[in-house]
């Protein structure tokens, strides 16, 4: 049974269930003086809910478990010799079997593997059939029971609304599940990493060279996982980005909120927001292709050598990306400063700029600080620009013209390509991930709190 025929099947059952519930309710209503407590359509809907929810749940379970079940069946089926003769272990073997096209196998493929692939195909069809039929029978059963319940005592509308609200709550909880998922997956893998490398070495070590860890002749020496160079690299790039973004963003915000006419504002604001809408990979490309070489030639001109991958190229371009975050948040914050304060200052004879510098900005300061903190958190977590323009060499340096690496760059470098979930190299990415998550989490919570409190003050 294919997925489409399954869907059509369920649809037909759904329509008839609704129709049956509806007509049964109508019949009851017309055959007696007593009336049902809810409109007939709610009885149809009630039956429908009992059909659709179990169906969705079943399909979700099937998608989640399908691969796992099939892999287990396949592993049990594959002969031991084949497993031993195949380089790369059992997981690679399973992947290999899955990629075989059974109708037209690549010439020279091991016939045993083709057999396994055919077996897998059959099993896959079988498992799917079990699942889909199982889902249908359970749903139909529940639907049938719910149709039986239609009576004068049964309040269908309340039941339908209750389940709808439950559905809404479940959807809201997805956000919590996501957070929990992030925290647990990161912690779980990071714990495995800290089994191999001490947390102290990780947080305070000065040398980062994870690639040594997978070299076979160096099983004993583990490679070094001191994350300090990554932290300093991240900080350096964030600092450069802020040096670009804060003055430009703040100046733009001040001009937009205080000086520009409403027409200029309505043109310039969307233009600035384009900067926020440009994907980060585009900034990365720009940094690597235009800005990096520009700085290199610039330095050549003054007679010293720098690499085209440098902290300043990545940080500068990241700063451009951050400008609209600071400008639009600060613009909101500055506009929220009550007019009465400005009037008070003008009435004293202050000029416009004196009013801005001495009354408006101090009043807006908490909000602006919140905006900057959010921007910092954004910069720390930014990936593509640094991956494309900052380099991967873990230099412990404060020279902006040197290549540095960041936490995010290392996560990408460690996880793109072959992954072995037993090696410290791969697991290190998760340790970096949880560090990154914690840093940004605290920044965000703090910043959001400041901004919130600021809003409450003036609203």
């Amino acid at each position, binding site marked *: 049974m294919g997925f489409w025929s399954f869907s059509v099947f369920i649809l037909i059952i759904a329509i008839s269930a609704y129709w049956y519930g509806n007509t049964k309710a109508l019949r009851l209503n017309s055959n007696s003086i007593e009336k049902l407590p809810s409109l007939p359509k709610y009885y149809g809907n009630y039956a429908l809910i009992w059909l659709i929810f179990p169906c969705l749940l079943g399909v979700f379970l099937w998608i989640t478990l399908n*691969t796992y079940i099939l892999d287990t069946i396949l592993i049990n089926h594959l002969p031991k010799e084949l497993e031993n003769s195949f380089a790369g272990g059992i997981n690679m073997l399973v992947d290999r079997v899955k990629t075989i096209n059974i109708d037209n196998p690549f010439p020279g493929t091991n016939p045993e593997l083709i057999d396994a692939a055919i077996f897998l195909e059959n099993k896959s069809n079988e498992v799917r059939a079990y699942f889909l039929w199982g889902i249908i029978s359970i749903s139909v059963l529940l639907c049938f029971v719910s149709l039986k319940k239609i009576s004068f005592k049964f309040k269908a*509308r309340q039941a339908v*609304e209750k389940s709808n609200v439950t*559905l*809404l709550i479940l*959807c*809201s909880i*997805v956000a*919590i599940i*996501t*957070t929990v*998922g*992030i925290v647990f997956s*990161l912690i*779980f893998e990071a714990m495995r990493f800290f089994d191999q490398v001490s947390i102290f070495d990780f947080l305070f070590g000065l040398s980062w060279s994870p690639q040594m860890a997978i070299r076979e002749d160096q099983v004993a020496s583990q490679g070094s996982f001191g994350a300090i160079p990554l932290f300093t690299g991240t900080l350096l790039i964030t600092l450069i980005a802020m040096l670009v973004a804060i003055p*430009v*963003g*703040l*100046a*733009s*915000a001040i*001009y937009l909120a*205080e*000086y520009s006419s409403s027409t200029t504002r309505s043109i*310039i604001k969307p*233009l*600035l927001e*384009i*900067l926020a*809408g*440009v*994907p980060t*990979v*585009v900034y*990365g*490309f*720009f940094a690597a*292709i*235009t800005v990096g070489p520009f700085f290199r030639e610039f330095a050549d001109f003054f007679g010293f050598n720098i690499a085209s991958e440098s902290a300043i190229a990545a940080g500068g371009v990241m700063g451009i990306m951050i400008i*609209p975050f600071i400008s639009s948040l600060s613009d909101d914050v500055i506009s929220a400063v009550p007019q009465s304060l400005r009037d008070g200052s003008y009435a004293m004879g202050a*000029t416009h*700029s*004196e009013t801005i*510098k001495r009354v408006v900005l101090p009043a807006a300061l908490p909000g602006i600080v919140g905006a900057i903190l*959010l921007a910092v*958190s*954004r910069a720390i*977590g*930014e*990936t*593509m620009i640094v*991956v*494309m323009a900052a380099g991967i060499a873990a230099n412990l340096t404060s020279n902006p013209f040197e290549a540095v690496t960041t936490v*995010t760059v290392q*996560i990408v470098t460690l996880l*793109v390509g072959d992954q072995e979930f037993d090696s410290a190299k791969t697991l290190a990415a998760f340790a970096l*991930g949880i560090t990154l*998550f914690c840093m940004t*989490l605290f920044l*965000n919570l703090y910043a959001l709190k400041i901004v919130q409190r600021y809003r409450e003050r003036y609203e």
Partner: protein
Amino acid sequence: MNKNTQIIKSSLLKRKRSEKYFKYFGLTGIIAALLFLTIIITSIFTTGKKAFKQTAIKLEIFFDPKIIDPENKGTEETYKSANYKIVIKNALLNYFPSVNKRIDIRDLTNFISSSEEERLLEMILKDNTLIGTTKELWLTASSTIDVIHKNLEMLNITEKDRLIDNKEKKWFTKLLDDEKLKFQFNKTFFTSADSTEPEQAGIWGSAMGSFFTVLVTLILSFPIAVAAGVFLEELAPKNKFTDFLEVNINNLAAVPSIIFGLLGLAIFLNVMHLPRSAPIVGGLVLALMTLPTIIIATRASLKAVPPSIREAAIGLGATKLQTVTHHVLPLSFPGILTGTIIGMSQALGETAPLLMIGMVAFIVDVPGSFLDASTALPVQIYLWKSTAARGFVELAAAGVLILLTFLILMNSFAVYIRKKYEKKW
């Protein structure tokens, strides 16, 4: 006139001047930001526009029966097994009769992209009467020739820094002087997937990958986010749990995207064993990432519906849920749609989480479903940028232009909806 007036008057000029400077300071900020925007767009445009055209070489191709069908069988099998490289080689030698050394012949043959052999075969399969005839054709040049043709100033640099040596330069100049070279529209770029040769690589494969990914994202995130938004804004009681939920969503909106990639890798790939590199996993991860954006947009547009509408419905005896579904939700729909489009354009431009779940691979087939291994537009840009060979950078820039075009279209649509249905209550 009192003494203060005197004091103030004396400093007035200075204050007026600092007033002007401060205004210029603000203006400079705006100009700087807009300048950056212009520089980025022009720099990418000038690099990227080169990739939309490619060099072609005009040759007299003789469909030699001795090579294509020596035994005169006339079957497709024979045509398929023929070596069209020789056909092209002969055409070139015909034009450059003086070339005779084996190594020179090889270098000369490399002027033409290897994809053209396939093209000749297809021509024969379509019309086998061509065999034995001579035809003038524009053949796609290899990427090296393409690069030289696009940057003719490269001919003047010294031989060892140049992409082609002196004898190749001589051939090239002859072709150029005889007007045997032209630029043609690079159709391949829009129809094929990735390739090892820049002149054969295209954006279509990754565009389809992006399409499937964003489709999965939309299907998952839109209903869930709207449901969550409705619950939080309209139905949720004010208590610790909903406060927590709210903080959670706001915070999730600011979690770095790469963290979502790690989540996808750990849960969807390692625990649930979903297929690696597949749009369905990419879509799942991006759906989780765009959820907060759409939830926040939904809540904002629900909030914009005035309470009088709710009161009117509730006054008629509607339940809270009926009020929301019959009245409030339809009224706030344009706002929700705008938020959703913005969320989708974020998803379309997102790269980092897709790297984590393996959508960064060399994939030459155009994906046909949610489960096929594929890349996505931004990832393809990243891949091409990281490829050392010349010619790929232009492709990456062209890819950026395509990506930006999609984003502009999506965002204009969002703006259009917002303008059209904007209501002032």
